């Protein structure tokens, strides 16, 4: 099932933020969300978008999907809290 949605419950902008803030802000936002809700995270730090955030989502058992926007140079990460 796809996690990507046009209507996420929250959108978090971490563009330009240095490591490890994209991950920490994502964690913080997820804590506040209820289960079943989805967050969309905008992230342009490669190590966070491709490594630390997906790894965190996987460890928590949350559904995760990353969409890389090549023209814009950042990622949209969709995480659904279980």
């Amino acid at each position, binding site marked *: 099932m796809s996690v990507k949605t046009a209507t996420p419950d929250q959108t978090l902008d971490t563009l*330009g*933020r*240095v*490591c490890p*803030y994209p991950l920490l802000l994502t*964690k913080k936002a997820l804590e506040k969300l209820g289960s079943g809700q989805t967050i969309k995270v905008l992230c342009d730090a*490669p*190590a966070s978008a*491709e490594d630390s955030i997906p790894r965190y989502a996987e460890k928590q058992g949350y559904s995760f999907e990353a969409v890389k926007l090549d023209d814009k140079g950042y990622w949209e990460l969709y995480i659904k809290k279980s």
Partner: protein
Amino acid sequence: MVSVMFFIISGLMIGAAFGFVLQRGRFCVNSAFREVLFQDYTMIRAYLLAVAVTMIGANLIEDLGWLGNSGELYRQAFVPYANVIGGFIFGMGIVLAGGCGSGILYRVGEGNLAYVLAVCGFFFGIVITKFGILRPVYDWMVAPERAVFIGADEDVVPTLYNVLGVNKWVVIAVVAAPIFYFVLKGKPFKKAKKGLSWSAAGLLVGVVAVAAFWASDYFSGRARGLSFTGPVREFFLGVFFGNSWFGGDVPAKEAMSLFGITFSWSSLYVLAVPIGAYLSGKILNEVKLKVPPADELLKVFLGGAIMGIGAQIGGGCNIGHSLTGVSTLAVSSWVANAFIILGNWTMVYFLLIRPMRDMDLAV
């Protein structure tokens, strides 16, 4: 002229290779140490694998006699106050700066302006410590009478094996065996979705570090290996004043002069690390100019400066001590590395763990 060409090309190639591998493998010693606190051991496995590979490789080429110019790996003198205090300060700085000595350089190649400021801050910190307002403190801490030597004539740099009085390879085996066990527990053969897997990154970082030991000996007469504190200083002093050793004596073998401008071999790879990272990032389509919020820019500059102060006092950064130095088994680097880790954890607690907890949120 030919030797000058090789001098330049070899330096640039080592740097570009290192930058490429760092970007591709997202190798970051700062996160390696930090994430241990959050029970994520992926990056620390990559780091430890790199250490094991460098340690075995570097000592092997030393014993095989491949370091023809100097005959041995460069092992740093043990200056306890400087190694302990400098290491701790540096460890705190990398958390603020969002990257370590090598991390801030390669991420310049990814286009984040924050890291340009971090590198400027790093150089700023190095210069005020070595030449400026902090020089009295620095000079006191690294004064020869505060260095610890061993041996009958008290002229031998302490290493783990000569302090314990055992064969070097016994120490290497005792250190490397648990590392390989720990690495194997982390499923090192699982493929990465994109870029390099953590294990490939750790292995390649180690291979480049060993190559750097050989190349630095061959081309610059001293098996200094990879490090970033001295070389960043030498690079900028070369750019600003036309001499990497501005304000001091030029070690003839390590220097290259072209049109009256004197550069160190190591300063060349500093220049090439962001270039290698840029090439890797370009292929993966991950290069983009980015500007973080103003408060973060300030924090990153400050973090860079703290890193520079700590690294200059402590005699190295997370590569010079934590990878290269630790691999030579010099006591100085093992002590400095322990305090880099402690400094890192202290800052992570105050900057990341406590604020999160105060908001009643678990990290």
